[in-house]
Every structure is written in C-alpha cells, then in structure tokens.
C-alpha cells in the first residue's frame, strides 16, 4: 500500500525527511506531475496523531524546497502505483491548473474570535431573538469584508467562512506570494486595532492545503 503526501512539478526536490513510520520517500512521475509517496504500514481507516504529524511534516518540508506543491489530504492508502497513476491521469488538467495557482505562494490562516457571546435573555420574543441573530451575522460579515478589503491586493485566492461557531466570527485562508506574509500580518493587525472587542489571529505560513482542491470550490481572484 502507498501513502500520498503531495503532488508537485516534475522534477520534485525530495527533502531529507522520513515518511510515516520511518518510511522512505519516493517520487513517481505521471505526465509531468510528481507524486511524493512512501510505503504505508497501515490500511486502517483511522488517522492517528503520529500519522497526522508525520504527514504534515513531510508536506511542510516539500513546500519549503519546491515552488509548487499540492498537499494531499490524509486519506486511505492507494493499492499500488497503477491505481495512483490512473487517479492522477484522470485529473491531470485540474491538477496542473491547481499547481499553477499555488506556484511561489504560501497560505496564511486568519481567525477572528469573539471572547463571549452576547447573551439573549430567555424572556425576549422570537422576533427580537431573530433580529439579534441577524445583527450578529451582519456584524460578522462586515468584519469579513474589512479583512477581505485589507488583504485583497496581496492575495491571489481566498476562502472565508463566517460564523462557523458562535465564537468564531471568521475563519479564512489566503493564498499569497511568500514575500507578502508580513504584509498580511500587518494588514490584519491594522483591522484588529479598530475592533478591540474581537481577537484576530494569523496562523501560518502553511503549505497551500486550502487551495489544493480541484473541485472548483476555491474562490479565485481575477
């Protein structure tokens, strides 16, 4: 069984790290795309902390020495090289487009967190509750828009999720040139200073996990 870590431009540079369970990394080329693999010691359908961290470590090292890397989601291992090659061949054009998109770029995460939710007293009417809820959503959307406006000029693509949980006002990811990481942090801090009631957190730089999707769900900027 084979474990897939990432796809990259051929020829990929393999960093001197080991894969899951101390396995050796190998690259297999399929029509100009290199798949970075190792043998997989397990066929289990559950991921362990060790596997997650080992997978993430390989992807991060790959992204640090290659211009275009598409991190693979940790998934079930592939039967053999033939099954994997076929899967890559079937999605060749989409994968090449995704590689072009992330080339030279890195991903930054932005989270906006609200310390405590404004409590709705039990006595309020349904109408008042709905109005309050609507106000919360609109306020969160305004924050999302402010962040978007602040980083639009430097980001190539973004994903934004508003109010995924009552405290999580915004969860966003931005794809941007590696040289712009500090600019993003500065831009987010600047928005944060105008909203002391919220906590703004930047994470990353990450390998471009959020922009490796090939189903067209990534919001690309013109």
């Amino acid at each position, binding site marked *: 069984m084979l474990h897939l870590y990432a796809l990259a431009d051929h020829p990929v540079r393999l960093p001197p790290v080991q894969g899951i369970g101390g396995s050796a990394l190998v690259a297999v080329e399929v029509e100009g795309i290199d798949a970075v693999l190792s043998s997989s010691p397990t066929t289990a359908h559950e991921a362990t902390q060790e596997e997650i961290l080992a*997978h993430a470590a390989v992807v991060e090292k790959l992204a640090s020495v290659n211009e275009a890397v598409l991190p693979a*989601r940790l998934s079930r291992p592939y039967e053999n090289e033939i099954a994997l090659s076929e899967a890559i061949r079937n999605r060749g054009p989409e994968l090449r487009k995704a590689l072009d998109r992330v080339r030279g770029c890195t991903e930054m995460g932005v989270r906006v967190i609200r310390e405590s939710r404004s409590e709705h007293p039990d006595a309020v009417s349904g109408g008042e509750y709905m109005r309050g809820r609507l106000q919360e959503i609109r306020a969160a959307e305004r924050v999302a828009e402010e962040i978007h406006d602040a980083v639009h000029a430097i980001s190539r693509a973004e994903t934004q999720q508003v109010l995924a949980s009552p405290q999580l006002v915004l969860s966003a990811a931005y794809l941007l040139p590696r040289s712009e990481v500090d600019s993003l942090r500065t831009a987010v801090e600047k928005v944060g200073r105008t909203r002391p009631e919220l906590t703004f957190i930047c994470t990353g730089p990450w390998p471009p996990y959020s922009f490796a999707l090939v189903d067209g769900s990534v919001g690309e900027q013109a």
Partner: protein
Amino acid sequence: MTLIELVDRVLNKGVTLTGDITLSVADVDLVYVGLRLLLASVGTLERLESEHT
C-alpha cells in the same frame, strides 16, 4: 490554535484524487484538545491550562 488548524488542514483540506471520505481520527484526545483551542481565546486558554495543571 496551530494544532487544530493543522489537523483541520491535513484531514479536511488538501487534494483528494479519489473523492475519499474524510478519515476519522483514532486519537480522540487530539480532537478534544483541538476543539478547545479553536474556541478558546488566548486568555481563556491560559485559564484552562492553569486549571488543568
């Protein structure tokens, strides 16, 4: 915060070639800790940590 972001990316983002469903996580503690990190602000987190030590 970084841990939950990492787990979220590795398990839910990234390219899939076969449309496989997301794996479950064997280590429940990891998810629990991650969820706590996700929802907690830095101040809340420090408080939680001091309560648990």
